[in-house]
């Protein structure tokens, strides 16, 4: 995967999407499709270290605070996710962005103009930094904030940084169909 990857589509998976690759739940089938296409070299999956941390935190919360999954299941999912990510990063199918201080600094602009949480602004900069074609997620708030940022009265509106990628929310049927069509045609 290290050569000839210039025109390969890149998909940034945030934690709400990536975690679905390692268990079978709602919309997992399309995330499995994305991961299998990346194994075949037809696309590159981009995540960040922050994606992995959020997945682990979500699993930990589901187990220890909400008691909706047993510890054995949490351990299995974390193990599978880390083993798979390690394996396919090594094969060039997955890129893991390691946020550097400059990215944290620049992400403030996305908080300023898109009213994102600090975490979601960091995902946005991570996705931008790899020039991804789409950000895939299952999160109505984050998705809506990026698609339709709440307008604020500010004469410097032209300073709002433009998002260069598509936002595809798995819970939105149009987005789902669009993603399915992109994946099928790769």
């Amino acid at each position, binding site marked *: 995967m290290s050569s000839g990857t210039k025109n390969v589509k890149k998909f940034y998976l945030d*934690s*709400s*999407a990536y*975690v*679905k690759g*390692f*268990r*079978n*739940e*709602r*919309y*997992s*089938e399309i995330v*499995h499709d994305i991961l299998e296409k990346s*194994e075949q070299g037809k696309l590159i999956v981009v995540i960040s270290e922050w994606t992995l941390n*959020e*997945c682990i*935190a*979500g*699993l930990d*919360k*589901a187990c220890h605070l909400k008691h*909706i*999954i047993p510890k054995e299941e949490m*351990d299995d*999912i*974390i*193990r*599978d*996710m*880390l*083993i798979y990510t*390690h*394996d396919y*990063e*090594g094969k060039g199918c997955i*890129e*893991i*962005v*390691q*946020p550097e201080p400059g*990215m944290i600094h*620049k992400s403030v*602009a996305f908080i300023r103009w898109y009213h994102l*949480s600090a*975490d979601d602004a960091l995902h946005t900069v991570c996705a*931008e*930094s*790899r*020039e991804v074609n789409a950000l895939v997620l*299952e*999160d109505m*708030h*984050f998705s809506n*904030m990026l698609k339709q940022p709440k307008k604020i009265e500010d004469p410097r509106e*032209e*300073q*709002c*940084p*433009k998002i260069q990628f598509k936002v595809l929310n798995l819970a939105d049927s149009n987005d789902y169909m669009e993603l399915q069509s992109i994946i099928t045609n790769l």
Partner: protein
Amino acid sequence: MPYDPAKDIQSYVKSLSKSRKCLLTGKRAQEYFRNLADMFGFNLHETYSIKKMRNLPKSKVSISDVISETRAEKYE
């Protein structure tokens, strides 16, 4: 020329995209995953198959819901 944050960010991310310096890769990635494997107590030489996962029954519990609920609290 006045400072333009939008252009500033776009040229910054463009410069990052041209390099691999902000990617976790090579020896750093090996060390990162080795540390996590030690922390969670598993062996990195095990394997995981998407095909096998597809055949398991679908869970009604969504971990994505837990993740997005946590995030939603930040927008309330």
